[in-house]
Every structure is written in structure tokens, then in C-alpha cells.
């Protein structure tokens, strides 16, 4: 499961819906893996305003990964400054180092095994082979 997904998943339990502490879910005993993927600059530009940056930083810290900068990059930060020598001005803009870092964190860094824990109710969602189990027993729905 990509860290991107973790930035959007919430606890599924009804009584947690209104509680701010049900997001983000906190990884526990997590085993990470890097799954390489093509960088999709247009997607990063699209998703950037929807990220919850502070919560992403929390999760990244909890996973023991290098701390993210305190403020979220801007869309402009994702595009490498075009070199004046480049003749192909019509071609698609190139990703900046910031975009590559973001791609690494959001898209390529995945939780393979472990648990996701709700900060409100303490419910643990197991993750196996990257697949989280969100099936709830009927009384919690």
C-alpha cells in the first residue's frame, strides 16, 4: 500500500467518522518496500493540493523515514527550471528533484506487512502482501 493511499484512508468504523483522530491511520510493525514506478508529473500536480501534508509528515516520521520539509511544496516546485539551452521548449516540462522525492515517498514507498491503527478507537487493520483488510465485524459497521 502506497503512502499516497495512507494519506487518504480513514478508519471505517462509524463512530470514528466524526473524530479528527481517526485520520491518519498509524502504521505499526510496518515492513516497507520500494516498488518502482514511472514518475507521473501531471498526477503529482493534480494530487498536491489534496494532500494532508502535516499528516504525511507524521506517518513518514512514524515509519522512521527521513523527515519531510515542514511546508508542502507548490506546484511550481514540481517542475525543473527549463534550461535556456534546451531547444525543445514545446516538450513536456521535466520533473524537479522535489517532484522526484515526492514520487519516491508517495508512489514508490509501500507498506508491505504490518498494521494500520486508528488513533481514535484503536482498531487495527492488518496489512498482508500490501493488501489492507478493512472488513469490519457487523457490530462495528
Amino acid at each position, binding site marked *: *500500500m*502506497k503512502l*499516497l*493511499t495512507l494519506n*487518504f*484512508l*480513514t*478508519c*471505517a468504523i*462509524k463512530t470514528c467518522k466524526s473524530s479528527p483522530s481517526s*485520520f491518519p491511520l498509524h502504521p505499526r510493525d510496518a515492513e516497507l518496500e520500494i516498488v518502482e*514506478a*514511472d514518475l*507521473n508529473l*501531471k*498526477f503529482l500536480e*493534480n*494530487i498536491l493540493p*489534496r494532500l*494532508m501534508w502535516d499528516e504525511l509528515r507524521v506517518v513518514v516520521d512514524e515509519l522512521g523515514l527521513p523527515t519531510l520539509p515542514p511546508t508542502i511544496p507548490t506546484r511550481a516546485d514540481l517542475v525543473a527550471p527549463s534550461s535556456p539551452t534546451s531547444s525543445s521548449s514545446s516538450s513536456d516540462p521535466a520533473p524537479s528533484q522535489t517532484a522526484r522525492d515526492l514520487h519516491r515517498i508517495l*508512489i514508490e514507498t509501500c507498506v508491505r506487512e504490518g498494521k494500520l491503527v486508528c488513533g481514535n478507537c484503536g482498531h487495527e487493520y492488518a496489512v498482508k*502482501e*500490501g*493488501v*489492507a*483488510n*478493512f*472488513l*469490519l465485524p*457487523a457490530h462495528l*459497521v
Partner: protein
Amino acid sequence: MSRPEDTLPPDLFYNDSESRKYTTSSRIQKIQSDMTHRALELLDLKSPSLILDVGCGSGLSGEILSASDEEGTPGGPHIWIGFDISSSMLGVALEKEVEGDLFLADAGQGVPFRAGTFDAAISISAIQWLCNAESSEESPAGRLSRFFNGLYASLRRGGRAVCQFYPKNDEQKKMISAAAVKAGFGAGLLEDDPGTKSAKTYLVLTVGGGELDGDITGVVKGMEGVDVLDQRRKVKDRRRPEDRKGSKAWIIKKKEQMERKGKVVKATSKYTGRKRRIAF
């Protein structure tokens, strides 16, 4: 032939052998692929988006979502997240190393994402299963409502969802559509090859607001919307022609009344008040 939905709950029906049989059948691959392309056409995505796939199964649609625009996926490649109630289906998806994230969940329990997560959602041949709830403690209506409420909240303003499904009968088609409308969606039904053995039903849903045109009739011509028009008719009408029941002026007036009552009504467009083929 009996409907699988009437035989077993989905997680038991889609066991290891059925999931494999399903995914490796070239006939099924072709049908699911065609329907996914049709749904993408209706979603009308212009650039790489975050998409939810409800009842994603073994990822037959997901593989198309991950393809690029040049490969025939409008606006692609997209990033998708899929969930399914069958761990066997998800197991086949894992074997295929699909690019989307997968999780095990029951659509009838809701959609566990924060508000405004997705640009779009797709669901192919899955949501009719929500109408079979005999094994659970809840009613189909309760499960449909939880699903559509969750889906509505998880989509961003101006977002769209397209759910192709196999209604058992007209009643089921109405029950599903009504649940979507009740959750707040602008909704329309589209039928391809109606009346034939290969008839396909698509529920097209829009979330108002945002930069997208939330009007379903802007998506497809010949599609019926969901403004609840008064079905009683043939009352001798002495009013001015433009106020006659069913006329465009009448519909607009009715919509304003409904809106004042807090009901969700579809935006008025050039199709408002025109005869259309499909109704629910």
C-alpha cells in the same frame, strides 16, 4: 441460467477457482475491457487522476486505468485504488502485479476515505451484489445507502462515478438509482443495447460543484436524469401552455420548488423537458 448473486455471497462465490476461471476467460476479459472503456468515456477525464475502483476484482479494469492516453486510456495513466470483498480475486490481482493499491473491504459497509479524496470512481459488474444481503444482518437498502453515502463523500466536488451493473429486474434498477440520488448524487441511467442479451446498464453519477459540469445530460445525450417529476398526468389542463405539466417552464418551476425544499435537482440544460429514451 441462475444469477450468481442468487446462489452465494460474493466472497464465497468468487473463491480461488472461480476467480481464476473468471480472470483467464478471454470472453470475460473482452467484455470487462469494453465496459471499462465505456465507463472511461463517460467519466471524461482529461488528465491523470486518482480513481477508486469498487469491486475491482482481479484488476481487469485497473490495468486499463494504468495505461496511458496513447494506449487508449483517456487522460491516463491514472493512479487507482481498488477494493473487493473477495480475497481470492485480490489474490489474482496480486499475482498479476497490477499497479493500483488493493484492499479487502465490503462496499456495503461504506467507503473509508476522507472527504474529497477521489477525482472519479468506477465500478464494473459489482454493485448488484449489494442487493443480496440475506447472509448479513442488514437490509439491501441499508447497504446501498452506506455505500452511496460513502462514495459521495469520498469524491471531490465536480467528481464523477460510473457504475456498470447487472440489475436483476426493474425494481432493483430503481432501488439502486434511488439510493444514489438519496445520497446526493446527480444521477442518470444509460443503457447500451437495451432489450438484447448483451444489454448493459450504466449508472452515471455526478457530485455538484467544482469546475466540472454537474449536469448528467451534458455527459450523454439520450440519458434520463433523476429530477423527480410528478408521474400523475392526463389531468385536463386549462393553464397557459408554457405552464403545462411536463413543459420546460413547468419543469424549471418544479425544480425551483424542489430546491427550496432542500432536494437535490439536476441543473437545467438544453435537454431539460425533452423526450428521452430511457427512464427510471
